């Protein structure tokens, strides 16, 4: 009971307050839908769980050995009807939440593009030890530990890793996806409000992991265009040599940008570790298969 109230209290305060950052304060359609599923499923289950907890405490208290008024029924050890009920209640719950799971898994599948009249932009994200590199292949620029995207525009990510596994995660915009060397995962998101969000690596990746977070600046399209223009005019160029320098382990790197990016750099990073990726593409479906 106590933890029931506590859980309710926690979820209640965070939702009503609405001022927390993170999963409960979504700023894009994907994260919003994911929060909705979270709330719906919690509601469905609380409807079962709270009565169970109340009943447990009530039954245990009423049938305490010292209670003379409670009837002792040592032979009450089987009841076909109750067994029916006992199996069907959790089954019904699972049927409900299972449907929610099924729909959610398809609708919000990370590789699925977001339908929109605005043309989406493509970003390639690479996790390095211990920083993030974001390449804008269509725009020919790149940035480190800092992500800039236009508001209201679908963003389509391709992600890989230089070595160890990380997880790309911007809680207020979409769920996370792993980055793994030698393969590509995909993620789509859209930000509906021009603010700054927190992005991070969610999967432990070694010594510098705690500093593997970055800001996501969401700005109006015209400011985004300005940002691209100014980025193109300053900073180093990203080619295989500067990439090799960048890939060396380093911690808490201050964000900076590259004014140009060598073509196909992302693919060469992905394949550099792999002479043959057939097996991988075979065993892991959609997102990777698309790559072949």
């Amino acid at each position, binding site marked *: 009971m106590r933890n029931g109230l506590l859980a309710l209290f926690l979820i209640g305060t965070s939702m009503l307050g609405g001022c*927390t950052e993170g999963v409960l304060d979504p700023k894009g359609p994907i994260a919003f839908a994911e929060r909705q599923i979270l709330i719906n499923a919690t509601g469905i289950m609380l409807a079962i769980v709270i009565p169970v907890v109340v009943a447990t405490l009530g039954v*245990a208290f009423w049938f305490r050995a010292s209670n003379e008024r409670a*009837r002792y029924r040592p032979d009450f050890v089987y009841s076909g009807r109750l067994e029916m*009920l006992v199996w069907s209640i959790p089954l019904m719950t699972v049927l409900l939440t299972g449907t929610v799971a*099924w729909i959610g898994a398809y609708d919000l599948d*990370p590789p699925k593009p977001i339908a929109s009249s605005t043309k989406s932009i493509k970003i390639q994200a690479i996790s390095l030890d211990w920083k993030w590199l974001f390449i804008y292949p269509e725009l020919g620029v790149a940035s480190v530990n800092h992500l800039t995207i236009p508001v209201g525009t679908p963003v389509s990510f391709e992600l890989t890793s230089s070595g160890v596994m990380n997880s790309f995660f911007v*809680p207020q915009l979409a769920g996370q996806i792993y980055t793994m060397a030698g393969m590509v995962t995909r993620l789509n998101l859209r930000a509906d409000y021009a603010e700054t969000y927190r992005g991070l690596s969610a999967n432990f990746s070694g010594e510098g*992991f*705690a500093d593997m977070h970055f800001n996501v600046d969401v700005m109006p399209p015209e400011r985004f265009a300005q940002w691209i223009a100014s980025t193109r005019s300053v900073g180093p160029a990203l080619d295989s040599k500067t990439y090799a320098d960048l890939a060396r382990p380093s911690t808490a790197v201050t964000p900076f940008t590259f004014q140009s990016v060598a073509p196909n750099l992302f693919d060469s990073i992905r394949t550099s570790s792999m002479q043959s990726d057939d097996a991988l593409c075979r065993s892991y*479906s959609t997102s990777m298969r698309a790559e072949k």
Partner: protein
Amino acid sequence: MTLLGKLDWSSIPFDQPIIMGTVGSVIVVIVSVLSWVTLKGYLPYLWREWITSVDHKRIGVMYIALALVMLLRGFADGIMMRTQQAVAAGGAQGYLPPEHFDQIFSAHGTIMIFFVAMPLVIGLMNFAVPLQLGVRDVAFPTMNSISFWLTASGVLLTNVSLAVGEFAKTGWFAYPPLSELQFSPGVGVDYYLWSLQISGIGTLLSGVNFVTTILKMRAPGMSYMRMPVFCWTALASNLLIVAAFPVLTALFAMLLLDRYLGFHFFTVDAGGNAMMYVNLFWVWGHPEVYILVLPAFGIFSEVTATFSGKSLFGYRSMVLATMAICVLSYTVWLHHFFTMGASASVNAFFGITSMIIGVPTGVKVFNWLFTMYGGRVRFTVPVLWTIGFMVSFVFGGLTGVLLALPAVDWQVHNSVFLVAHFHHVIIPGVLFGCMAGYNYWFPKAFGFRLDERWGKAAFWCWFLGFHLAFMPLYMTGLMGMPRRLQHYDVLSWQPWLLVAEVGALVILTGIICQIVQIVVSIRHREQLRDTTGDPWNGRTLEWSTASPPPAWNFAVLPRVDELDAFWAHKQRVLAKQELPVRQHAYQPIEVPKNSPVGFVTAFFAVVSGFALIWHIWWMAGFGVLGAAVTLLAFMFRTKDEVEIPADEVGLFDRAHPVEVSP
């Protein structure tokens, strides 16, 4: 190539005051205990009665003692992590540098799963299952001793890593490529792998032992549907051990080959596939959850039935639910990595199968509830742990179903929400269960009950502390805090983490209460003495023999005609208003002979494990050879059993009559 491989003085972290202080005090404690034991002349007794013992009850007790000691170590790691996260906010780095913090969370997970939860569960099964089945020992008593000592070897190696070298800095599941030589060149991952390989063999042998015991050794008349429910859950758990642990062995062998011989199973180059590790790890890892929690469910069932004065409600349903969980646990492993980019249909499938496990689990909760309904519930310590479990676990299950929704999992996976969830099922589920079992069977093992007052204090501290420590983590998890953070810059997380720290301190108080409980109970053992063998008015066969039971458990194997055999027997006696006639035709009993083979094999296992970790090849060869020669010597042993004369059996049995009181 030196004589000592990679080992030299720089392997000992002299510059780390926290580690050196801990190591120093541990050494002082060990040395003083050893010298006390030696001076008092207890060594021969220890050797004869415990170290070489193949008695399942003794081995069970040693498993539990080992687990409780390691609980202290694992908890120390836990509270250090909580303290670090409570202070390392904003620009602060806390008091633990990353290389130390990373070892601590890896060690915490590894120790709590493999060296606390596993030995607790296996220890309780060791102690209770043969007694409940009404037989004299497990199927392979000497192998049982080997299992225990191999587990202890793994424990020893893990703890040696504190003083010599380092432990893994990869998290307790050691995902490659991070755990590959390229990214973890130190000995930490090797300590992890060899400790778990060695103790894993012990666990596997235990599994084989118990499956055989339960399926082939039961008292006359005990058909499957007359087996106590704890034995059913033990059977399910051990079937899972037999079917899951070999996967872990194979998996770790592959990672070892990668690290030692340059193979390419999981490397980033030459076609290695790290995703295969993640898959195989959880093919073991998810059944492992049920290996731990099913026996705990069994304990809750026994406790609820005993202290409600009723048979378990819906026994058949419970058995069915147990076996359903056993099978289903193999169909859900992918829910540990919905974020790896599998297709929507795969994610949806595994999400739904994971939820389906909630059905038999829910059935169990309802059946416990109906067992209490119409009963006479005595609020003893085991019952408190059980009710505490029921009201917490349903919420742990709730967050579990949330995590089984792929769309929600993407948002909270790898976060402290996940950390809160699995502690929410493992602490109330496994740990509370084992604590209930520990309080429940303690009088059977030692002949006196544990102090109730301190036991209740311990329960309330654990219960409150647990919620204080983990509820805030749900919140910070939803706020986007990933797990395993050495420091963070989001100040709004800190208040929650401070509350969690307080919770950890309350749990610490609970642990202190448990230590006091043991001390007080030993002091007052005469008042707490159980002379009847049946302190709780029990239902199953373990209560029909003396407390503590003799080496042969039962003077005459009990004859079983129904479920809750001992209860039924007591009812018949009460109805007839006369005590049963004692059997006077006692037979001599053969009990398995003590054997040092487990201890000696384990010694050599530690030697070879340590040598392999440090690449001291000659020593590794020596260790393997030593173990082989020991087992060979055992194979050529001529006498396996000693005979207890009928007189001695009769004398003991007459001195310990089972009393039946209403």
